[in-house]
């Protein structure tokens, strides 16, 4: 059962699995609004949190796929416990990471051993070919120098592996004695900046039928209007997303927006509302210029929704 937190009328989804489930199983996309961890300084692809439109959140709650809760405040009573467990966790992490780093170093050295052995053999051969005993003395000296180099490095990150390979290639480190290496320095500890809350928390469920501070949409005519149209289109199998860019209420896709272009720009009008001609004309022109059909939607009193599509035909 997915849980979505709502605060000030905004529903945010913070878990990637939840986002996946919503999109794949339920056809509700939402919009990512946060920075993407891999590239936080670009705007073309954004990351978590996912912002759901109020209509999307309400639909999910209505069909029972999701529980809406009011965004919970951290409990001050739990704070000291949380702090203690965090410190413990960090210590544990540190130990584990040191162990893993040492392990990684060991395995790397083992891997390189064969290469080193090969390299040494080749070198020896070459030196013996060139000159006699003086060559083997030099090889012995370089081995010792290499052995001192290997324990000196402390870096735990795997990105150092390439650098190490170069070092191993140039000098020939011996399989060093049981490390005697310096432990992982505190500053090299890898830390996760959690996206979602790392601890479970209790929250109060939100009733979307009732107006509250966190859900001000209940009962508002505009919201009801948009929702009825959203629901109807969703039930017909379309994928909907916000259409602020195109001057409409929704963009209607025949399938997932990742692979399909939108076909319609849906504009919601209350039945009986007069539509100013200017709005019609501007909406029509906009639709034409982006190659989408304008869809005027109106829910009827009997519950059905009536659609009118507009296409600009130039009389020339």
């Amino acid at each position, binding site marked *: 059962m997915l849980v979505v937190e709502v605060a000030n009328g905004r529903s945010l989804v913070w878990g*990637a699995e939840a986002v996946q489930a919503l999109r794949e199983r339920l056809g509700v996309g939402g919009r990512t609004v946060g920075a993407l961890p891999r590239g936080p300084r670009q*705007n073309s692809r954004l990351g978590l949190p996912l912002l759901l439109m109020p209509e999307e959140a309400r639909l999910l709650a209505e069909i029972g796929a999701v529980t809406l809760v009011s*965004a919970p405040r951290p409990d001050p009573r739990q704070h000291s416990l949380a*702090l203690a467990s965090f410190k413990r966790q960090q210590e544990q992490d540190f130990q*584990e990471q040191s162990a893993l780093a040492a392990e990684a170093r060991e395995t790397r050295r083992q891997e390189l051993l064969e290469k080193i052995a090969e390299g040494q053999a080749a070198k020896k051969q070459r030196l013996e070919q060139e000159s006699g005993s003086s060559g083997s003395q030099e090889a012995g000296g370089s081995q010792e120098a290499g052995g001192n180099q290997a324990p000196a490095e402390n870096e735990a990150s795997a990105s150092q592996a390439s650098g190490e390979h170069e070092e191993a290639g140039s000098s020939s480190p011996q399989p060093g004695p049981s490390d005697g290496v310096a432990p992982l320095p505190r500053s090299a500890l890898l830390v*996760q900046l*959690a996206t979602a809350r790392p601890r479970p928390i209790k929250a109060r469920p939100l*009733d979307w039928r009732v107006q509250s501070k966190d859900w001000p949409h209940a009962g508002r005519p505009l919201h009801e209007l948009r929702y009825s149209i959203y629901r109807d289109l969703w039930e017909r199998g379309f994928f909907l997303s916000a259409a602020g860019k195109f001057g409409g209420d929704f963009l209607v896709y025949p399938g997932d927006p990742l*692979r*399909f272009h939108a076909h319609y720009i849906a504009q919601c009008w209350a039945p009986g509302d007069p539509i100013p001609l200017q709005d019609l004309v501007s909406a029509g022109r906009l639709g034409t210029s982006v190659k989408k059909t304008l869809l005027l939607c109106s829910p009827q009193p009997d519950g059905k929704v009536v659609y009118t599509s507009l296409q600009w035909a130039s009389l020339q």
Partner: protein
Amino acid sequence: MEPEPAEVEVPAGRVLSARELLAARSRSQKLPPRSHGPKDFLPDGSVAQAERLRQCREELWQLLAEERVERLGSLVAAEWRPEEGFVELKSPAGKFWQTMGFAEQGRQRLHPEEALYLLECGSIQLFHQDLPLSIQEAYQLLLTEDTMTFLQYQVFSHLKRLGYVVRRFQPSSILSPYERQLNLDGSALCLEDRNGKRKRRSSSSRSINKKAKALENPLQGVDETTESLTTSSPPPCNQNSRCPEEKPQESSPVKGPTGPSLLLGALEPWPGLANEGGGCSQQSGKVENGVKGVRKPRWNFEQISFPNMASDSRHTLLLAPAPELLPANVAGRETDAESWCQKLNQRKEKLSRREREQQAEAQRFREDVNADPEVQCCSSWQEYKQLLQRRHLQKSQSRPAHLWDQPVHPLLSPGQADSPATVLQHISVLQTTHLADGGT
């Protein structure tokens, strides 16, 4: 409205194990291309389409599921202060300090939106009551209705990701329409947008030709240059060097003023500019139709960056002067005086408590001649001399003429009075009263 009793458990987000943390370091840093081929028109249930969709989706989930992993040593520790509404840095700031944050009482601080943006970028670790905050908790705590709303933060982060330097808006820096009408101080204020955002200046290698244009029409030129002088304000070093981390906007709509703004570097070595400035201010005085009176100075000296070797606002890159200003056989060149800075002892003097108190005492009674508003009105040395002369005259004219300028007459000559009472009576110091006479 009573709270519902049933409590729903919100599951925790993903916490990476140590192994996963190490593995995260070796993941690719490049963003994969968005779609696999052009988009299709209609879903036709084909396997190929489904496969492409699956691939796109996989990529998306993978990207979204990645967690931020950073080395503890590269994170700046910061603490959120809810009562005060800002974030205080606990360890020294990194490169972001050049464009974000503010310093108060010697401590480095960040606004909530800046802190949140840096947290999302993975540059800082935000603590609240000693617990590090996740991004979700930070959004909840820092983005409230009274500090910064979610919508404002979205705008801020969008602009920052585009590469702009975004700062809080100061309403006092904008001229009112009336002031603008009077052209009271058309030059000394900045070109900031309504939203207080200021574009990053791109490279300082723009053409030297623009300087020549400015010389040809001095009035216009001075207006532009004085505008530009102010737009080059903090920090001046950014104008002369390009910070590679922020992407500068090349095709900027602010291109007009930006061009001459780079004249700043060249203006400093020009000796004759002060006269030019004085001359032009007189011209603009005429433009104002003789509206004289208390006028703010044309030059905002706090924002003109003179070469400065001190540590407060280091400005050591001196651009070459315009060749047309130099004599024929003299070549000007650009220097960077940074190497000299290293030879100076830049360490702050550590005064003992007593010395500090003494300094404070001395400062208290010292008057700064520049703090005098009348002196600030003077826009040239000539005017200042006139002011001094006026003051001198005033001082010398403060003696009343009837007391000081007439020949001295004694109030009483020795033969006129014979007793102290009559003397006093005569010079009217005291009126004699005769208490013995019935007391009326």
